[in-house]
């Protein structure tokens, strides 16, 4: 049982990590808690659904296209909602409130357009058999989710660490004003990050929509507090931390079901978050951000 539960924790944690990757990226660079991330996640799932049902595309072709579509939506949100607030002396939480507005608008518009009812990918979109490895059982989709989330994280890390572009992004994350003076196209970086983060969110939407067979306008909502918990655990704005935080939350949840009580699963998970913050005020991986002393 323990082996199976560890696999369960790994896949659940990968789902959380996948959701949190884009979320943490936006926080790290734009310093906005983007509460529209769940809406973008939902939009990705609907985009893939339309591509599969209306354009008869294979799901693995539809996935990148859906990511592009949700990326475009993320870019739109940034340009229309967040850009006007940059550089103005607004309350530092105003951008977050703006993303709440965007989330409400997008999810409810989606409900107006697609209806309140749950949609799903047609039968046979993906194979659904499970494999038996020793005492462990796992489905192809679970493996795909684990691999894709690890790959995306690695890719992001390599891009951020090794490329010029990545260095620019990190410089902007560190200090937008200085970066601007150094000749970095700060607005360009913001656009790129908004796009990438939303594309990642949309991709997560497709994969989770596939694995749960349920696509509906509010599908992103229950994941928001968990996504926030993940990026806090991992340290805000830390790509590697999002992965670790996701896995940590997955393990915490699965193990509290397995060895404590499923009644108190969320209390255990969020109680741990609470305690970890008390011991490590900047998350597991967070650098202690010393505000100008």
């Amino acid at each position: 049982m323990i082996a199976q539960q560890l696999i369960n924790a790994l896949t659940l944690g990968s789902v959380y990590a996948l959701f949190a990757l884009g979320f943490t990226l936006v926080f790290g660079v734009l310093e906005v808690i983007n509460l529209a991330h769940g809406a973008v996640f939902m939009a990705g799932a609907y985009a893939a659904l339309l591509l599969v049902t209306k354009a008869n595309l294979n799901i693995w072709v539809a996935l990148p296209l859906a990511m592009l579509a949700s990326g475009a939506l993320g870019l739109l949100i940034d340009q229309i909602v967040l850009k006007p607030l940059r550089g103005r002396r607004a309350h530092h939480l105003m951008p977050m409130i703006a993303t709440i507005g965007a989330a409400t608008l997008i999810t409810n518009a989606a409900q107006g357009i697609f209806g309140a009812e749950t949609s799903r990918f047609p039968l046979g979109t993906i194979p659904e058999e499970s494999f038996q490895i020793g005492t462990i059982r796992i489905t192809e989709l679970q493996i795909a989710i684990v691999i894709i989330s690890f790959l995306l994280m690695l890719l992001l890390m390599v891009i951020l660490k090794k490329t010029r572009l990545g260095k620019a992004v990190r410089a902007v994350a560190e200090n937008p004003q200085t970066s601007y003076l150094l000749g970095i196209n700060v607005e360009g970086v913001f656009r790129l990050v908004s796009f990438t983060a939303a594309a990642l969110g949309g991709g997560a939407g497709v994969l989770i929509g596939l694995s749960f067979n349920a696509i509906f306008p509010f599908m992103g909502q229950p994941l928001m507090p968990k996504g926030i918990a993940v990026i806090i655990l991992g340290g805000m704005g830390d790509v590697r931390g999002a992965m670790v935080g996701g896995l940590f939350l997955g393990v915490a949840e699965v193990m509290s079901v397995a060895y404590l009580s499923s009644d108190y699963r969320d209390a255990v998970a969020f109680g741990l978050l609470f305690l970890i913050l008390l011991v490590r005020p900047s998350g597991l991986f967070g650098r202690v951000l010393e505000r100008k002393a």
Partner: protein
Amino acid sequence: MKKVIIGALCGLVAAFAVATTAPAAEIKLGVAAALTGPVAKYGVPIRNGFTLASEEVNAKGGVNGNKLVLVIEDEQAKKEEAINVFKKLIFQDKVFAIFGPTLSNSAFAADPIANQAKVVVFATSNTVNGITDMGPWVFRNSIMEADVLPVTVREAVKKFGIKKVAVLYGNDDAFTKGGYDVFKVVLETQKIPVTNTETFAKGDVDFRAQLTKIKAQNPDAIVCSALAEEAANIILQARNLGITTPFVGGNGFNSAKLFEIAKAAADNTIIGGPWAAESVSARNKAFVAAYTKKYGAEPDQFAAQAYDALYIVAEALKAVKLSGNLEKDRQSLRDALPSVKIEGATGPFTFRKAPAKAGVETGYDAQQDAHIFIAKGGKFVLMK
């Protein structure tokens, strides 16, 4: 000048009075349903069921020649909204009766308003205990889990020779938790040991942790109270983990969505309920056909119960002689309702006075026989 105005006002009032007592009056019925927000997926089929039924009634000449007019309001499944909507329907729109609200939680907040204002409130989707305890103006045709599950469990035990079961339910939702509470009592009274009881929360996408734990206990069946999408994915994930035991489901399992997602994996799932799409009665076939034609989607039990509810009220209204006095007419409707008997999409229907509760006059629950269905080859087949 003053007199002229008063005169004119009197004239207007008289005109209104004449209009309301005229033979072709309009009978306003309120519908409070969750039409936006996360619960809209239940509220929308409910609205559709009401709309379809009222159009049918009106197409056949209405009730005693009076047209039914639905005033549909969105209550967002929030308690304050439900109260606001009830008040608007009662005091501003002056409806005869209110259908709704969608969730039991909202009903506990809003039904006292209707009861106090002496307006019939008719629930079609509130299944938990205590709804009709709120007062004599509260009615429901949503059959209670307490009436269904004992039969379901008994039939399942007979069919599969079940010795011990595991229980899995959603504990942050009144509907699924209410189902669990009944299951718990039923399993105790029928002396069926429970290996372990596991819970999940709304919005969960992965039930493998709970299922793995259940698998280790090796139960003969899994008793589960969940909403349709959750139920389907629980079944699928159980099968993926190599769990082959049958499922015994609560009310939430009763949905075409179960098979759309779980397909043949759902086979051998036993459920009980007042209605299933596959029910063969002519009345039901006509309903399913009409609904599918109008909305381009298959109805679910929420739509069916809403559809029947409108016919029940229409039947009661036949016996009401409209006086033009709203209060009197509301009272007449209330008095006519308990004795209504109809043959609806969900089968034969009558009301039953809810058991009296210390000092408070109660309302009326549904008296309907539960049918027991078993899933076979991607659809529910009648067992009993």
